[in-house]
Structures are given as structure tokens and as C-alpha cells.
């Protein structure tokens, strides 16, 4: 297990390093001067000169590259001229929002996905299966941003059941912790749904297929022939074996989830990573864009790593691979 873990972490670090390099060279190749583009219009010449110097823009390429890698290793992604503070601070500020959005969405995604998948596998090849498979295909393909807008116009603008934006009400929605928690959940309801639905479609499809595969395995057939109750078979044999596949899918879905975060946060005006990145892009805030990209990459790498490890725990064969 340890060698497996060490191997995976090593690969992850290498990828992260290469990603950092890639991002640096994309930033280097980009036309325009980062200082001028990010608000330099109204700065005095001396400030521009000083900022250029501070950002190391007057150095040769290799020096800049070495400096950049050195910075990133120490967790310093540079200084955002637009936000007038270090990129790291800006990112750290918005993380709680993004993590609560993504975390809740993963849970919801699993609940919906597993429920649909189980039901479809239970009624395999029947009408219910066909309906559920169609449903999961449809929700898997529906573009998240459009779904969000539809939910927004129906449940928020139309019925007034949910708030249309932001993470919490004025003054946290109430005095007690419970009240403010309820307020947050209320605000996150539609974004969670928006983010979870497409992923739930994917999970449902995979889960259904892998349940059906597992159901055909010899040990399941054997247990059934021994007269073990279907419930026990499902809970002790089928579920654990089929869930492995789902976790693998979750690992690869993290990228899609982060992409979903960008549009969901934009639609619902949530103060998270996605909106930070969008703001950075619309204001040509180069250091912030680069920081966000690397951070998103790191999250995906860590997510994949966790999924791998979890998969390895559940299914020992994976460790050999």
C-alpha cells in the first residue's frame, strides 16, 4: 500500500510541476504587458516601472522561470494588481465557498446517482429501466449553465422559493448557528442542484452498468443460490463492488465538477473560485488567472489521487496496477 501511495503522490507532484511550467510559458507567450493590461492605464510611469520590477518582468526568461517556480513552491502566486493584494490571499478567501458548493454537490450527486442507478439495475430491461436510463442520459447532457438559469427563473424568480444569488442573507440570516447554517443551505440549494445533476447522470449510468456486471459474477450467483436474502446480497456483495467503479468515476468527474463550479458560481453570483477566475479573466488579471489555473489543477490532481487511494482500499487489485 505504501509503495502504491508513494508512487501515486510522486506522479501527482511531477504533473503539478509540469503544469506550473506550462502555465508559466502560456503566460510568457501571451501578448501584452501584464502590468499595463491589469489597470496600468491610470498608473503613473514610476509605479508601472516599480511593479514591473517587482513582478520581475524586466528579467530574462530563464530567470523569470526559476523565480516563478521558486515562488510557486513556497505558495506565492504573485500579486494581483486589480485586487491589490497577493493572489494567494484572494484565492484562500474564496475557497470555503467553493468547497462547500462542491462538497455538497458531490454528496447530492451521489445520492441522486446511486438512487437512479440502483433503481434502474433493479428493474433491468423493464420500462422503468428504460425511463431512468433516458432520464440519466438527459440530465447527464444538459449544460449546467442552462440548467442553472432554468432553476433560477422557475424557483427563484418565478416561485420565490430560493434566493437568486449570494452565499448567505444579510447578517447571516439569523443569530444562532443553526439559523445561519439553515440560511446557507437555503442559499446553496439551487447551486448544489445545478452542479450535481449532470454528474448524477454520469454516476447513475456507470453505477447501473457496474451493478449489472457484478450481479452476473459467480460469487453473487453463488450467494443467491445459497438462499441469502436479496437485501443482504445487495448490501454486502453488490454495493461495495459496484461502488468502486463509481469512486473511479468521481475521481475523473472532479475536473468536470470544477468546470461546473465556474458557471454555477457565475449564474448564482457565489463568491467562490469560479467567479474569482471569471473576474480575473474579464479584467485580464494575469497573475490571478495563472494562480487560479494552477490551483484548479492541483485540486484535480489531489482529487484523482484520493479517488485512486480510495479505490485501492476498496479494490486491492488496483494497487497492483
Amino acid at each position, binding site marked *: 500500500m505504501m509503495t502504491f501511495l508513494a508512487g501515486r503522490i510522486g506522479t501527482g507532484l511531477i504533473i503539478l510541476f509540469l503544469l506550473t511550467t506550462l502555465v508559466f510559458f502560456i503566460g510568457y507567450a501571451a501578448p501584452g504587458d501584464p502590468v499595463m493590461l491589469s489597470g496600468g492605464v491610470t498608473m503613473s510611469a514610476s509605479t508601472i516601472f516599480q511593479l514591473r520590477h517587482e513582478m520581475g518582468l524586466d528579467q530574462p526568461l530563464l530567470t523569470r522561470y526559476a523565480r516563478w517556480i521558486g515562488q510557486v513552491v513556497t505558495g506565492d502566486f504573485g500579486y494581483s494588481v486589480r485586487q491589490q493584494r497577493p493572489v494567494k490571499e484572494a484565492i484562500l478567501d474564496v475557497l470555503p465557498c467553493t468547497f462547500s458548493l462542491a462538497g455538497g454537490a458531490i454528496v447530492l450527486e451521489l445520492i441522486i446517482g446511486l438512487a437512479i442507478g440502483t433503481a434502474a439495475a433493479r428493474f433491468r430491461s423493464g420500462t422503468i429501466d428504460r425511463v431512468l436510463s433516458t432520464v440519466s442520459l438527459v440530465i447527464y447532457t444538459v449544460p449546467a449553465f442552462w440548467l442553472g438559469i432554468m432553476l433560477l427563473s422557475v424557483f427563484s424568480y418565478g416561485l420565490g422559493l430560493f434566493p437568486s444569488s449570494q452565499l448567505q442573507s444579510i447578517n447571516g440570516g439569523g443569530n444562532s448557528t443553526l439559523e445561519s447554517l439553515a440560511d446557507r443551505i437555503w442559499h446553496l440549494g439551487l447551486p448544489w442542484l445545478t452542479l450535481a445533476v449532470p454528474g448524477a447522470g454520469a454516476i447513475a449510468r456507470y453505477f447501473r452498468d457496474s451493478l449489472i456486471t457484478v450481479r452476473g459474477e459467480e460469487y453473487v450467483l453463488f450467494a443467491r443460490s445459497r438462499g441469502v436474502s436479496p437485501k443482504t446480497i445487495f448490501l454486502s456483495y453488490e454495493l461495495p463492488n459496484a461502488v468502486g467503479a463509481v469512486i473511479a468515476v468521481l475521481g475523473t468527474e472532479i475536473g468536470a465538477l470544477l468546470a461546473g463550479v465556474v458557471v454555477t458560481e457565475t449564474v448564482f453570483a457565489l463568491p467562490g473560485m469560479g467567479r474569482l477566475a471569471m473576474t480575473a479573466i474579464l*479584467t485580464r488579471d494575469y497573475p490571478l488567472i495563472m494562480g487560479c489555473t494552477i490551483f484548479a489543477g492541483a485540486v484535480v490532481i489531489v482529487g484523482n489521487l484520493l479517488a485512486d487511494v480510495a479505490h485501492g482500499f476498496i479494490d486491492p487489485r488496483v494497487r497492483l496496477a
Partner: protein
Amino acid sequence: MTNHITHHSVRWWVAFAICLMFGILLLYNGCSRKRSSAAKDYVVVGIEGDVDTFNPLYAEDANASDIIDLVFPSMTRTTFDSSRGAITQIPSLARSWEFLNSGKDILFHLRSGARWADGSAVNAEDVQYSYIMYADTSVGSVRQDAASAFLKSGTIPDVRKSIEVKDDSTVIFHFDHLYAGELFDAGLPLLPSHLYEKIERNKIHQDSSLRIPVGAGPFNVKEWKPLQDIILTPNTESTLPHPGRYSQIIFRIIPDYYQRLAQIRSGEIDVLPYIEIADADALIRDKVAVQIYRLGPRFYDAINWNNIDGIEYAKSKGKHIIPNKLFGNKKIRQALTMAINRKQIIDAFFRSYGRVAFSPISPMFRWAYNDSIRPLSYNPDSAKKLFAAAGWKDTDGDGILDKDGKKFSFVLKIPSGNQVRAQIAAIVQEQLKAISVDMKIEQQERGAFWGAIMDKNFDACIAGFNVPLQMQLDELWGGDLQKSRFNIPSFQNIRIDEILAGARQVSQETDYAPQWKEFQRIIEHEQPCTFLYWQTDLVAANNRIHHANIDALGITYNAADWEEAPR
């Protein structure tokens, strides 16, 4: 088997509990929303984007400036006399003042007892220190120009001489020359020197200890949640003029206008700046408890024709200025204006809240506005004749005018994110097509857009300006393109430069009205750009806010006086 039953039942219980919890949450929140019409002790202002910084040295964002005015002290404050259409200065930190040396110096008597939010006194040194900081090039303040305009060359020792600290309660401003905006320029936000002095000057713009400001105005910034809320609470120590009456003023960041609109209807936000006309009408029609305030007009939009050859300008680094091949001729610019139906655009978008603009001087300034000028009217036939007279004809029959092998074809740049401008651009495109002028539209993100405009790298662009309260047009219309960075059409005219130079010398702004009227006549004749419209901004504010005298000065300038209306 029993084991399975418990499994089974536990699962159902959990599921049931979760459903119940969600149900209760929703119900609870639904109910609490209904209750929200009860009296509140806070006001929520819905704003579009986050602010950049609260440091007065560097804040460029309009919301940030508004908040800074509520938090930081200043010598004088500005009020607007709507009957004359002129601004006046009233005392703030300065209790009173006297003009000395025939108006070139002003002696200010400071109010005693003003304190920073951390308890230390606001003293005369703070005043001097603040102006030193604004003027210091190593600080790199964005207000450097405003601060050094009146100082005797803008270096540090001179600031010390220009702003003389007589004693703890007396400061004398020695101005370089007599001009109308002396009191206004003496009214920049003042900095707490005891906090700023601890930081190296060239590090101030990165210092995070100044992120939450310490001021002496009616409010403190209690919390700044990026991309979420900015929460102001009353500064109970304030004597400038007094602590805010509401216990909180919250600036809530909601990027989408329509979400802001929905929230002012539901009462989640109380003040919605810059509401669209149709929506304002709808709010009134639906009897939403809001009042609509009119601002200005302080904003105009114009199609700026690049009067000079931008490529040549860039190539020679601003030394070589030659007329633009398309727009260098004033007859052509007049023709373009005549081909654009401004009346129709205004009727479609602004109805009674817009009016045709012909110069950068707002009708709000009654004393200076030249109401004898009749703007060029829509007349595509005359436009075509002017084009033909200038030699532009469609010789190859492709539907686009040409002359000497060059087509009258250009790109109109517009900043992205403004739907009205995009729509107006599309309308103008159609209208120009009718006189065989080919215009393409290019939307650019604001930063890139302004980058290109500043480099003069454009044919034409839609850009608008919020006119300052003071009649200061040098930056926009001065003929020296290096200095007048916002002279977007790169318009150069000797008489205009004379008028602008003269304006800097008058002691009473309103005395200069005849020259400003002449200025408008020249601009109207030369048409350096096609002014589209003056737009009266509308602000919706909840009826429960008493004393919300939102006017040309802005939205929150008197937020300290806001209080809950008696029921």
C-alpha cells in the same frame, strides 16, 4: 433478519429526518422572508462588483470612492445647488476658512475634537501628511494629479511649503495660482498619518494592514467579505458630521443586474443604483415601496472618431500626428453624425430620461449649458451629399463608399458587458449601412478596450464619461495628447486650448460661463465625436429610508443622515 430490519428502518429514519429538515428549513426561510418587511436597522445597497481597495491613495473604483467618502475625513465637503446647477463647498474637518493673499491662499480653521476610529486625534499634521503622500511619486497614488495640481511643482519639500501647518488647529494652503477649484482640491480624503508612517512608502499599495481602513467619518468598515458584502457600521466617535444613524450600511455585491432588480422587489436590498427606465416604471406600476431618484444627467455616451492616424501615432511614439484618413475631415464627422438617428435611439432606450448631447458639458450645470445650440438633426441625405463632396463614392458598386481605392469601412470598438451599448452599436451599424458606410463591431473586455483606446489603436469607439462635478475638461479635450490622456478622439483645436487654459485661472467658476458656451459651439461645429445622449441615471431606494436625498453628487454621500422613516 432482525439485523436487516434495523438496517432497513434506520435507513428510512435517516432519510425521513433529512427530508423533514429540508422541509423545515424551506418553510422557515419562506416565513422569515415574509417577515422581512418589518422595521430594519440596516440598509442594503446592491452593487455590481467588488471594490478594489479602500486605500484613498489607490482606490479607482466608484463604489470604493463612495465608501471612502463615508469613512475618511476631509477638509471640505461638496454640496450641489440644483437651482443654479452649481456646486459649493461646506465645512467638514475645516470649521471655517478665510481667503488670504487675494485668494491665492486659504487659511483653514480645523474643528477640534475630531478623532480617528482608533482614538487618536485628527490633527493638522495629518492634513499635510496626506497631501505629501498624494503627491509623492514613490507612493504612486492614482490621485497624484489632483493633489499636485495646485502644489508648486509637486515634490516633497514643496508640499511642506504649500501646505503650512500654523498650529494644531490652523492650516494654510498656498496655491500655485488662483483658480476656481481650490476648495474642492483641498477636500481630498485625509489619511491617518500615525498608521501610514509605519509603512515604507513604496510598500503602501501592497500593505494588508491597511485593507480595513481607519477613518474619522460617520462610518467604519466593519467587514469586507470579498465578492460578497462590505459592511459599514457607524463610527460612534465621529464628529464629521456625526455617526451614521443606521446601525449598518451593507454594500452587497450582486453582479447580475436582474438579480439585483428581483431583490429590490423582494426587499432584500434597499438601494439599487442605476436602475433601467423600464424597470423603474415597472416598480412604480407594481407599487413596490421604493422611490425613484434622478441623478444628473452626469453621464454621456459618444462615438469617438479617431481624428488622427492611430498607427502612425503609435509608431512614432506620439510624435507624428497626421489626420485620420477616414475621420480627419470635420465634414465627414458631421456627415456621420447626421446619419445617426440619435432621437430614435433615445426614444427606444431612454424615453424622457435621455436627451441628445452635443458637447461634454452637462445640462445639469445650468450656468454653463448653452441652450441656444440645436444639435445636428438626423438627415441621411445631407450626410450622403457631404460624403460625395469629400470624394467618397461607391465606384465599384459593392455597396460601400470608396475613395482612391480605400473603402469607408471601419471597426467600432465597444467594451463588453454593456447591453445598451451593444444594441446601440448594432443600430448605428444599420443606420450607417444605409449611407453605404461599412462599420464592423468589436466587443472587447474593458481592460483590453481601454488599453487599445489609450494606445490610439482604434478607428472608432463608443465610450462615455461621467462628468466631474467641477468643470475640468483638460484631460478630455486638451490638445497635448501626451497630457490629455482621455482625449479619446485626439481632437486638437487652438481656441479650445485657450478656453481650457483660461478656465484654470478664474476664481469663481460661474464667471466663465460665456467661454464655456463658446466651447460648446466649437465642439458642436467640429464634431470630434458624435455625442449620443445625456443619460439621467435612476436610483431606486426603499421608501423606508428617510432623508435619502440622492442627487447629482451620488448615492450615499449623505448616508450618515439616512434613517428609518417614521411609520
